[in-house]
């Protein structure tokens, strides 16, 4: 498979090896060119020149090859000069002229001339265009335009229900929000329970599809809600992508969108209250109720939170709990991260940004700590209830299972982190949406019904 051959150092150790299933042929991701392609290195001057494509008949210059071809037709060439030469059949890829750049090397060349131009401009060019509202600077005018359209229109919604128009205050709030504290408590509670090998209990927690837990987790990290301008035409599609399912996802989502709007008041007075508790109907719990969140924690041993009835009851609360359960998986994932493991929340968050632009890009799922998913499936540990036949999720289990195998196929693809400051989508797509990892428009609170399905 060509993909394997050209995957670079960053993901090499994660490709192939632990993955027993056959890989599907996928479209190459930006910066992983077809090894058969012709590598073209243009100088900065040539790259930035606006009229690279010259007509051999009259010498007129054009910005794009398509324009040139259109022009050439006008010369009424009598024979096959009109046709593409065989040279055209060979795909071209371009390297960045900036020596210190990752894309300077042929193995990381970009396949699109416009793409490499934009990349060069964005990363190595002068940022002449500045947003009035937030002072953010851009080197590419189209990026600036795209940003200006959405700047200030986004809203950020915390799990607790509060909405923010400012990202920085959202981030700060999130760090102190009780919803964060509870999520991790539930994760810990779940992990402790699972460790105690209480088989039935697994399903209550793990029935949520992997996708939704990923989605939820990212929604709990700084994604904006769909803004009024967001032409999300496909919030469904995006969410189902996150959930790794097909139509199943749609049904679940549509069942739940109405619920979202009922979750949590917007007023700040509710911020620190616990909206989850106020609207839940705690069913009887099987779990020990002696958990004392405050006391058990110390700055050295945050890992040791034990279970409590409080978060557990919320888990069972259809309307609101989903806010926390899914993060169970991902937070669990993080708590096992070592500093050297670079497919951590950082990379995950960055992938989330790309989600916004490339809604059908399945690579996102692949990047999501897939190693762990694989390991867990293979280890047959607590998570296997999620993928196995005994998942209570209505039909989700099998869907997830198959999609997980698909995900494993994607594991090797190169992911590009999008940086917050010098943020650009290196393959030239996506415009302003990938400026930061808030690019995902979906508020994936839309999975309460998934819990409905298995409770």
């Amino acid at each position, binding site marked *: 498979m060509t993909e394997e051959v050209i995957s670079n150092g960053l993901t090499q150790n994660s490709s192939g090896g632990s993955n027993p299933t056959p890989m599907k042929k996928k479209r190459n991701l930006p910066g992983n060119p077809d090894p058969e392609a012709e590598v073209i290195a243009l100088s900065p001057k040539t790259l930035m020149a606006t009229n690279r494509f010259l007509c051999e008949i009259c010498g007129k210059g054009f910005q794009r090859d398509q324009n040139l071809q259109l022009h050439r037709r006008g010369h009424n060439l009598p024979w096959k000069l009109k046709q593409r030469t065989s040279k055209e059949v060979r795909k071209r890829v371009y390297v960045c002229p900036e020596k210190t750049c990752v894309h300077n090397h042929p193995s990381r060349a970009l396949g699109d001339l416009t793409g490499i131009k934009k990349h060069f401009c964005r990363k190595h060019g002068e940022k002449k265009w*500045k947003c009035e*509202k*937030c*002072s*953010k*600077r851009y080197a590419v005018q189209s990026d600036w335009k795209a940003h200006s359209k959405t700047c200030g229109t986004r809203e950020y919604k915390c799990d607790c229900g509060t909405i923010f128009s*400012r990202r*920085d*205050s959202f*981030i*700060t*709030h*999130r*760090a*102190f929000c009780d919803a*964060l*504290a509870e999520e*991790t408590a539930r994760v810990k509670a779940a992990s402790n329970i699972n460790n105690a090998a209480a088989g039935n209990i697994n399903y209550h927690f793990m029935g949520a599809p992997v996708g939704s837990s990923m989605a939820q987790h990212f929604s*709990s*990290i*700084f994604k904006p809600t769909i803004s009024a301008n967001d032409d999300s035409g496909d919030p469904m599609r995006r969410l189902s992508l996150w959930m790794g399912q097909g139509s199943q996802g749609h049904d679940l989502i549509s069942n739940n969108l109405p619920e979202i709007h009922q979750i949590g008041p917007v007023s*700040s007075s509710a*911020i*620190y209250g616990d909206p989850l508790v106020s609207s839940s109907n705690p069913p009887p719990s099987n779990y020990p109720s002696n958990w004392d969140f*405050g006391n058990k*924690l*110390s*700055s050295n041993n*945050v890992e040791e939170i034990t279970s409590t009835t409080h978060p557990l009851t919320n888990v069972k609360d259809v309307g609101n709990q989903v806010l926390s359960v899914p993060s169970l998986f991902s*937070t669990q994932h*993080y*708590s096992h*991260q070592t*500093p050297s493991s*670079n497919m*951590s*929340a*950082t*990379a*995950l*968050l*960055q992938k989330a940004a790309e989600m916004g632009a490339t809604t059908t890009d399945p690579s996102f799922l692949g990047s999501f700590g897939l190693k762990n998913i694989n390991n867990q499936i293979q280890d047959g540990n607590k998570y296997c209830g999620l993928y196995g036949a005994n998942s209570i999720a209505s039909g989700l289990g099998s869907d997830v299972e198959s999609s997980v195998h698909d995900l494993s196929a994607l594991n090797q693809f190169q992911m590009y*982190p*999008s*940086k*917050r*400051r010098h943020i650009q989508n290196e393959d030239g797509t996506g415009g302003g949406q990938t400026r*930061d*990892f808030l690019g995902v428009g979906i508020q994936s609170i839309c999975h309460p019904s998934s819990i409905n399905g298995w409770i």
Partner: protein
Amino acid sequence: MGSGHQGFLRDCARAISEKDSSKIHHLLWMLNELASPYGDCDQKLAFYFLQALFCKATESGQRCYKTLTSVAEKSHSFDSARKLILKFQEVSPWTTFGHVASNGAILEALEGESKLHIIDISNTLCTQWPTLLEALATRNDETPHLKLTVVVTASLVRSVMTEISQRMEKFARLMGVPFEFRVISGLNHLGELTKEGLGVQEDEAIAVNCIGALRRVEVEQRATVIQMFQSLHPRVVTVVEEEGDFSSSRNDFVKCFEECLRFCTLYFEMLEESFVPTSNERLMLERECSRSIVRVLACEDDIGGGDCERRERGSQWSERLKEAFTPFGFSEDVVDDVKALLKRYRAGWSLVLAQGDNSGIYLAWKEEPVVWASAWKP
């Protein structure tokens, strides 16, 4: 400024300084009639300054200060502190200005380092750090390891640091930033800090972040504290202070009083315009300010406790800091970030660059500089 109440206040201060008993009594009585902590700005200022004047006249400042502090502590909790500070940050850039500037300087100074150690000497309840953590998580391919050592001086803050540390650790995990957190409290004097005490390792890139902390150091000890910073060999030192001078005039009661009145008038007016009229948070902040007023005007300097409150202006701090450091200018990007921050608040706020020999940037409220932020390097 310059209303009837303020005239009485000044007259009273003068009377106290001249020890004119009957005049003092008369003015205190007048002020008492006019003042109210629930009225308009003038009435509030009259109330709180009356309190300080009364304490000064009766030499009961220390007792009053202790009482006020203990009352505040009783009604204080993690929830109330969090709510207060976050609300304040939402409606006013008074504190976020310094956070954004400092984080910008820190990120730039420590760019490329893999082991960061930030020594946070402040009472901001770590509200500065989530955005920094997020930036560390998203900026580079390699997320560095961050160690955060918070040095707390205010008793009110000390009590909530356990909860704060939990939140910070969880949040760092959420961000995927390898993180270590430590709190140091109970110091009598910042000068007591040492490299070993702070857990500074040789392979760490150090940043000292000092927000509103230098003013709490006794005036005579400030040079020592700055030398202590120097001994940590930091890559960058960020200092943020409120722009007022209660220090050079500390032996001149009337002059100090005038300056205190000027500064607090700005502060109260800013609070009034930033919060809704019924805001409980604003009331809390006003009370907090009133404790500072009593402390500065009616207490002897050496009562200890790490809460001196004698502010100095940016130019004065610069003089001190230049003894050990050189200015580390804020880059254009950071300045832009700060400007963008100010745009997100109500009108009235602006950024002013320091002029001439001075360094740093000022947050201005209606053209008056109110907060000074600066960065320094060895």
